[in-house]
């Protein structure tokens, strides 16, 4: 059984209440088609749980097969520095075919980021180390590909359609209470 390592902390990007009954962590790659297909599924799953689910995203850019994945992850971090990680996260997954430098600047403008700050962060690769930390944590957690999902710290290996995920998360929510 693969466990999320390290557990969620303040450095992580979180959506939902800290008191949520169940936590879902996604290791994702903004250029990965499978992550792109999982994105709407996870959005529906979040809606199904409301405040009962806390969702976290960690970077797992597959840099060899996806040439823009690393810089896209850094762009998300640069947006996070301006308090807009989730708008950038959503936008990147919704525009997976536009992840080159010019497109990233366009996305930043669209979500209202300070462009000078954003571009200088990307140019100086300030957030590369942060992204690689996530990548290393994913590898340490036993992850082999994307999207990697952890439910309450345990790697989810089931089918990733909405119904299966909702059922697994609900089961985990009940179990967590029993424990």
């Amino acid at each position, binding site marked *: 059984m693969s466990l999320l390592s390290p557990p969620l902390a303040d450095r992580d990007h979180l959506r939902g209440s800290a008191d949520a009954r169940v936590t879902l962590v996604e290791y994702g790659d903004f250029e990965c088609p499978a992550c792109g297909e999982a994105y709407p599924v996870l959005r*529906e799953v979040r809606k*199904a749980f409301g405040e009962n*689910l806390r969702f976290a995203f960690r970077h797992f850019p*597959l840099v060899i097969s996806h040439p823009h994945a690393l810089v896209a992850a850094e762009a998300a971090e640069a947006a996070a520095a301006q308090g807009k990680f989730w708008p950038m996260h959503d936008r990147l997954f919704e525009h997976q075919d536009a992840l080159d430098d010019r497109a990233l600047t366009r996305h930043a403008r669209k979500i209202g980021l300070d462009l000078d700050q954003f571009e200088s962060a990307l140019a100086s690769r300030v957030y590369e180390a942060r992204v690689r930390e996530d990548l290393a944590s994913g590898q340490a957690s036993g992850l*082999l*590909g994307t999207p990697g999902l952890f439910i309450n710290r345990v790697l989810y290996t089931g089918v990733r359609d909405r119904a299966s995920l909702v059922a697994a998360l*609900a089961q985990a*929510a*009940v*179990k967590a209470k029993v424990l």
Partner: protein
Amino acid sequence: MGKKMSTVEAVTTGPRVIGRQTLVRLTLYYVGAGLILLVLTALFPGGGVSVPQTPAPTELTDAIPWLRSRMAVLPSGAPLWVDALVQMLSGLLLVLPIAFVYVRTRTRQRYDQSLIQTVVMLPIVVTAILVVVRDSLALAFSLAGIVAAVRFRNTLKESGDAVYIFGSIGLGFATGIHAIGVAMTLSVLFVVLELTLWRLDLGAEFEQTFTRLCLPSRGDWAALARPSYGTKGTDRTDRERPGPPRGDGAVALRIYVEHSDAAQPAVEAVLKRDAKRWSLTKVAAEDGGLSVLEYRARPRKRVGLGGLRDRLLQEGTPHVIAVDEADRSA
């Protein structure tokens, strides 16, 4: 490894999207396959037909026969086994995109690995049979006898899979009689149509399509006028009644709860207020104290599905864990 997992996931979940890259690859594949087939059939002219040595062309229309006669390795006609091999390879080349489309359009649950292998192998086998049978009536009768003696019983996962089998057999027939052009047309048309139908999810929204395209008959009106399910009912008999018919704005809700006895009144209080019609269709107990209450409900317009879900979650606390819209196929 990561890349492999990504590919697997791409076919198991998510929206029906055909990437531009997929289309480009398929097109390039067909162009490449077409060229290979042209060269192969020119090098090894089959069907017992010898290629006449034509004089150098004076017109453009004579260029292709002249080129073929110059290219032919065996101008007097390839031996039967070479001819058969070329035809089988043609079948194999043209069936691979069909197999790809099968994988792309199936989810993991609906995917059948043995069908893929069958689809790939069938054109080769059918071609071989046709090469052997050729114009022999006696052999054709023998084949029919053999086929009748062997029982083929296999339950396909879904009826759509049969189309792949027939497509594959058709391809084998075409290549088996040297109709490579027909085989190519079949393969391309099959792939295009299958991807298009899958992309459009044709026929999935029966009620919507029916409502938009079909005028109800007198019988339909009569059926619509009859009350067929409870309205705002909370009595126990509602459990036994069928839910509202589909297509009337009702959705199937799957509500994951803890302690269903306590959760159900809270859920139904919300439904009573915020749903125009609703009925309980199923209660299922899961492991660890989890239960799933399944309702069919038509949310009030001012509330909407999202609003109804949020209220169920808020007012059902702490018993309601999740409110999911059941799959349309369920």
